């Protein structure tokens, strides 16, 4: 009998739970957190810039120096001493970035130890395109059917930036 009375009393209490204070807290917290919430994540691209005082070191052995030149009408992949390796024409302002990624993967296969690349740009190239090209030079992402997931392959993550050589007008 006593037990039964206790039970009914407890149920009665549960009905009367005072949640007003909790509700107040929630009503304040939710808008506050919504305002401060960040929905777009930002990240950074690290550059490999030389210090202004750094002297150019003459190398005894000519090393393979990959250069990607971004021009108004094309993207050129070259080597510092050997010259142009491949040229990707931009048709109607559309750059062939996928072609560039494929070719750079090919270069990486030939020079697996190579980590740095130089990005040479014309003065009027847009920042957006610079970042897009840097993405392609930095790493390549491929869907691997065997593993059934996206694999990221590092290409040339140490990117330096410089001015594009001026083309001689024929």
């Amino acid at each position, binding site marked *: 009998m006593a037990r039964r009375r206790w039970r009914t009393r407890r149920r009665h209490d549960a009905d009367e739970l005072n949640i007003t204070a909790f509700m107040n807290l929630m009503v304040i917290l939710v808008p506050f957190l919504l305002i401060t*919430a960040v929905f777009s994540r930002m*990240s950074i691209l690290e550059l490999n810039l030389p210090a202004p005082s750094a002297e150019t070191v003459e190398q005894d052995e000519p090393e393979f120096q990959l250069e990607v030149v971004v021009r108004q009408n094309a993207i050129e992949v070259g080597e510092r001493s050997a010259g142009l390796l491949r040229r990707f024409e931009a048709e109607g302002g559309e750059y062939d970035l996928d072609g560039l990624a494929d070719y750079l993967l090919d270069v990486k296969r030939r020079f697996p130890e190579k980590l740095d690349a130089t990005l040479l740009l014309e003065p009027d190239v847009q920042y957006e395109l610079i970042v897009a090209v840097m993405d392609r030079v930095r790493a390549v992402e491929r869907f691997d059917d065997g593993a059934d997931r996206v694999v990221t392959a590092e290409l040339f993550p140490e990117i330096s930036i410089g001015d594009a050589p001026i083309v001689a007008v024929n």
Partner: protein
Amino acid sequence: MKRHHERRKRGAALNLVSLMDIFTILVFFLLVSSGEVESLPNPRDVRLPESTADTPSRETVIVLVTADEVLVQGQPVARVADVLADDEIVIPALEAALEAQAARVIRPEIAEDSATREVTIMGDKALPYRLLKKIMATCTEADYGRVSLAVLQKVSDAQVAAVGP
């Protein structure tokens, strides 16, 4: 009649259970997502380029380049039109502002070593390289050894293809 009244009085207690559920879940979700500290400001008038880079941002000096102004830590230092009109590669006003930021560093041993001094450039995606080059040259001139570009993280095409069909 009396009984009817009593029933109405009891019914006045709103059923808040589902609302409470939603609020509780929302609060926990937002608390967790706000736990990731974002060290970069969220500028309204700068459209950052998108990239697949996933290096998290660090607490650094920020150079914000909008379509018409250059700001260091939120303080306007130069106008983009003036910078582009000038043939000089280094922007004197920006260099002075960066030097002043370096002088404000609490630990002087960091300020001495240029290799550890960092700057993040947040630029609008429509900026020409000509302007970016001047800003980067000024940063290295002001002894900032590490320059980074702020980008919006995007999901790469390969990942989209993997999730898609």
